[in-house]
């Protein structure tokens, strides 16, 4: 298992375009990827899950992955958040 904590700094948070980019990126990996927000787990490969999380700017999230490419998956998603989804 590999995990890292991130903070959303982009304006829209995990809504609209950033949410679909996040899901698309997570779906590229074989590992089981989850997001933890306020101790609740959400499936990172689910647009419905990510949207219902309601994560806005300033939200702190933990990205956790388990599987053969767990490290790559977490790092790729962290990079997406850190670059503000290209906003």
């Amino acid at each position: 298992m590999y995990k890292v904590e991130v903070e959303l700094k982009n304006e829209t948070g995990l809504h609209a375009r950033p949410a679909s980019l996040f899901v698309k990126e997570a779906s590229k990996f074989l590992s089981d990827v989850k997001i933890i927000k306020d101790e609740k787990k959400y499936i990172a490969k689910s647009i419905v899950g990510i949207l219902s999380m309601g994560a806005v700017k300033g939200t702190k999230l933990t990205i956790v992955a388990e599987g053969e490419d767990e490290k790559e998956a977490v790092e790729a998603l962290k990079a997406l958040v850190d670059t503000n989804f290209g906003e």
Partner: protein
Amino acid sequence: MVLKGIGASPGIAIGKVLLKKDPELKIEKRVKDNTEEEIIRLKKAKEKSKKQINELYEHTLNTIGEEEAKIFEAHGMILDDPEFFGQVEEKIKTEKVNVEYALKEVTDIIVKVFENMDNEYMKERAADIKDVSNRVIRILLGVEITDISKLEEEVIIVAEDLTPSDTAQIDKEKVLGFITEIGGKTAHSAIMARTLEIPAVVGVEGITSKVEDGDIVIFDGDEGEVIIRPEEKKLEEYKNKKEKFESFRKRLEELKGAKSVTKDGIEVELVANIGTPKDVDGILRNDAVGVGLYRTEFLYMDRDQLPTEEEQFEAYKEVAERLEGKPVVIRTLDIGGDKELPYLELPKEMNPFLGYRAIRLCLDRTDIFKPQLRALLRASTHGDIKIMFPMISSIEELRQAKAVLEEVKEDLRKENIKFNEEIEVGIMVEIPAVAVLSDQFAKEVDFFSIGTNDLIQYTTAVDRGNRQISHLYNQFHPALLTLVKTVIENGHKAGIWVGMCGEVAGDPKLIPILIGMGLEEFSMSPISILKARWIIKNITQQEMKEMAEKVINLPTAEEVEKFIDDNIKIDYI
């Protein structure tokens, strides 16, 4: 039989009805011991749905455009969603129920969560989730819906409502137009009708139970009138009207690229009102020569917090650049009144239209006002941007607003950030006090733009949203015309230009009068531009000047309108 709806997309359609009445999905709860079998059924239905959605994506991409096709990309993602369908499988396994029931239950819960979020974007996603779920359920139940993608003959589609999946399949060659029971001018279906340029009427209550397949109907997408099973005489009348409309539309097309100049050589500017950078497409398509009113409040709406300076800068810059040096009048935030921003948590007022709104709010909340002015100034190097303040009611307010603008300019100079030092600053004239005192105001601004929607409301003390008194709200009111004339004259005396934004600027009956009064800039919705140009090319300013002098002396709105009808004849053929 004649029914009345809301005209959503102009044009006249005459043809046979295709009633699109989708069968209600009846879902029963059944106990299923063989849960494996149910899950296989779900997988098969999902595969079939996937194929349909991919086809819709391709079809929309090829026939309409990328932006419109994106909705089906989203549908594809929902269909692949592990959380959504994970919950459905879970329900099948634990409760041993049939797949249709499980899917419906899960959909209802998720849709409710999304619909309850205070966010327009999420509400739209709720509609998408429902659309996808219904598709899968229909496949499971073997329910067929009226297929509108492969039509044999020309039809008018009549439906309760049309979903994105429906409008994407519309074949312009076969669909003469459509009529729906629900929806307003801004509903998805209405917007699509205008994009596809087919006539449409929405909000026609009861239409689906009053017509049958094959009935002849006539409808007028401007007036919103629907005639069911017309008599021979009516049919002939509308056939003529339709022919005229189509030949006139062709004539208007030929006016693209032409100047808006009267027969005696007076040229005016026909510009457009926009709300978002996306609306620039309409400006270019209809050949407006600039933006006369950019309503910036849309940048602030449907979100949880204020837009940043950077977001605003990008939007203003995009519009300025796409207009390639043509004028872009940007109105600073006009919020309050009927337009609320929940995240500002403003107290409810007894009289919001007379309350804490627009410039009044901005002068009080410079933390909101300044980032907008900074963004506007920074974008001013990318085109011909002009700044316009709304709801000014006194010279003091104007001076205060200009002082804040100066402060922001000074900050930018200190930071070595470039902006247009000569940027024009004007006001919206929408409060009678300003119109009356326009000689004084003209000395302190670069332009006036008369905002007629509010000017009528404030001059006549009529709430334009109140249906009981809506007959008192009248653009032909002589008091309004007198104020307009005063503003134009005072502007010209001081040597500044005078324009108008608001419905009156695009009113075919009043355009000649405004030309006669010497108005120089007319800002209207993009689709009205070519018709306005046609009117202007068919009149002389000299003659209209005489007409304007006569109407202004009439005592009632009714007489004003009648005088115009009787004396100003313009051929629309």
